[in-house]
């Protein structure tokens, strides 16, 4: 199993490398660039813009060679400040720092500096990660529980009123645009009823500092109830938005997996043996229906990550999805690369988790 995991991770390296190439060149090839923010500013001269770009190791209207250099700088192969493939120690730049290589680029663990925020990309992302993680984990747990409950019950009571209601709602919610659902929830529950807040992750009035920063944690431990409750209230609408759409699709999925399992011979055998219905459903049918559900559940983490873009934008949550949108608006190459890179790693890891869990849950599957 360990060998399998290592092999899979090694196979993922070229794919992640290719996606970084595609994404970087996509951004470089497009007209405009981060210098567009100076377009309307008549106090900034062209020379100043060029110097500013050079500070970021970028050039205006890059040719193919310039693009390669810029990408090499991001990756860590190109020593941009010396303008060569060699590091300051005159050794190949891609070598690790202690072997005389450079210190810039992903290969050396340097994610670059955000053009828009003028802070290291890794720090910015780490600061925004807690909100996204909290949002995604909460949504993921609720979503999985609900999908399982609704799907299994709909399958067991097939064609009943309950089944038809679940079917109707899942078709409807599945077709609703997520962001529009979010807007409607804001209108109903925040604007009209004043039940839940519609913006941010905590109320500015009682907020001790940015969410999950050290200041925040210190304040949190003095009064967990107050700060926890505040964050929980702010999570209700975003999580509902995120969950509603995914549950709609996945309760159908659970239902069909469960139905297939209920039609198998071993379920009939279990019933024939005289086992109780509850035992037949949960010990025999459900355990076998779990296989496709587990795979699907792990794969949907990547889907939730893109769902975070939608919900964080609508509810102004300072997470990674919102950061991504801000980076897009500012044409911030390095920030965008950092977030896409995290997305790629999430996909690789959870694809692997899905396959490993599959083998754990199904003893017939072996990976060696």
């Amino acid at each position: 199993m360990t060998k399998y995991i290592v092999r899979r991770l090694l196979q993922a390296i070229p794919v992640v490398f290719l996606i970084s190439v595609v994404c970087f060149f996509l951004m470089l090839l497009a007209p405009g660039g981060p210098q567009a923010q100076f377009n309307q500013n008549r106090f900034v001269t062209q020379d100043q813009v060029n110097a500013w770009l050079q500070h970021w190791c970028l050039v205006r209207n890059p040719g193919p060679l310039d693009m390669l250099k810029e990408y090499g700088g991001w990756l860590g192969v190109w020593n941009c400040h010396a303008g060569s493939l060699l590091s300051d120690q005159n050794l190949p730049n891609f070598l690790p720092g202690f072997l005389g290589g450079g210190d810039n680029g992903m290969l050396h663990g340097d994610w670059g500096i955000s053009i828009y925020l003028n802070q290291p990309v890794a720090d910015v992302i780490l600061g925004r990660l807690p909100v996204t993680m909290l949002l995604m984990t909460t949504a993921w747990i609720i979503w999985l529980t609900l999908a399982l409950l609704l799907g299994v019950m709909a399958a067991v009571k097939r064609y009943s009123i309950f089944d038809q209601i679940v079917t109707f709602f899942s078709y409807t919610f599945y077709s609703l645009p997520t962001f529009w659902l979010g807007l409607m929830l804001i209108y109903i529950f925040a604007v009209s009823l004043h039940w839940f807040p519609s913006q941010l992750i905590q109320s500015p009035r009682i907020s001790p500092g940015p969410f999950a920063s050290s200041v925040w944690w210190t304040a949190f431990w003095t009064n967990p109830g107050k700060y926890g409750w505040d964050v929980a209230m702010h999570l209700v609408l975003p999580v509902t938005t995120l969950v509603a759409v995914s549950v709609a699709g996945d309760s159908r999925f659970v239902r069909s997996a469960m139905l297939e399992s209920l039609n198998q011979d071993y379920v009939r055998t279990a019933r024939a043996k005289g086992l109780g219905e509850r035992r037949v459903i949960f010990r025999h049918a459900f355990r076998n229906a779990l296989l496709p559900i587990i795979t699907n559940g792990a794969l949907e983490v990547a889907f939730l990550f893109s769902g975070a873009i939608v919900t964080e934008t609508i509810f102004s949550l300072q997470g990674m999805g919102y950061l991504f949108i801000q980076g897009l608006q500012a044409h911030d190459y390095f920030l965008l690369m950092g977030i896409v890179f995290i997305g790629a790693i999430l996909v690789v890891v959870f694809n692997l988790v899905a396959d490993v869990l599959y083998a754990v849950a199904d003893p017939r599957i072996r990976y060696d």
Partner: protein
Amino acid sequence: MTSRIELPLGVEASVQSTGPGPERSDDVEVALKSLGQWQLAWKRFLRHRMALVGLAVFSAIALIAIIGPIVAPYNPIDIPGAKEQGGDPPTLQHIFGTDDAGRDVFTNIINGAHISLAVGLFSTLIAGVIGVIVGALAGAAGGFTDNVLMRIVDVTFAVPLLFLILVAAVFFGQGSVISLILVFGLLQWGLIARLVRAQFLSLRETDFVEAARAVGVSNLRITFRHILPNALGPVIVVMTLLMASNIVLEAFVSFLNFGIAATEPTWGNALSNSQGAMGDGNWWWAFFPGMCIALTVISINFIGDGLHDALDPRARL
């Protein structure tokens, strides 16, 4: 005198007797007409009630998209000024209300319909054509070609696609409908290519392909006459669902102001403009465009559901 006999699978027969009575059996002519795959599929589709409703609703929306702008009650860019600040709620004159500039929301929806539908349809067609070509090439050629093509597909699956689409839309979209269609289409063919390739791999092993090969049919003919038509069923279903999701995607990208230029009256732009109005309680401004998107998507999804049942070759009539 014509009597019809119910025959089970894909065969229609009519019995015409020329003589005066049924006892003159030697004068009875039996004409058998077998139904083609597509006729059978159409018959199965007609049995799917929700799909028919979906088709009717979608046709109505498509009709509105085409002739709507001609018969729309107001000029979409006519700005008479709203009576109330932030737009008037729905009244008999403006059944969906007006936005803050006093533009009729209903008129804007009608004028935006063709853009939404065009983005959904054409981006899906581009993705479909590229996907079928690449998938068929990979499935039919196998070996090195297959490997290279599938690694390219892997790359588009290596990140949540929304990220890549947003990057491409922001950097290349520039507010034009055609570039948005291209961005969607060129980034989404991977799924269809995978599907077509999988179909090719499984159909290649079937008996009828084996039989065709045994009687000496050329590889080219086997690919185009025997495998491709059978592989198309699932592709059409997936393309239907893709079209629905692309309509939502267009609205979302425009909602973020990264899509079609804000001056165009698209559904996404209508929602984008309304984002601030929601806080003031002007719900109609966002509600109706969103409902239109939802209605379109639901009807397309039901059509897809019907097609799924209809195009399944194992299904009986």
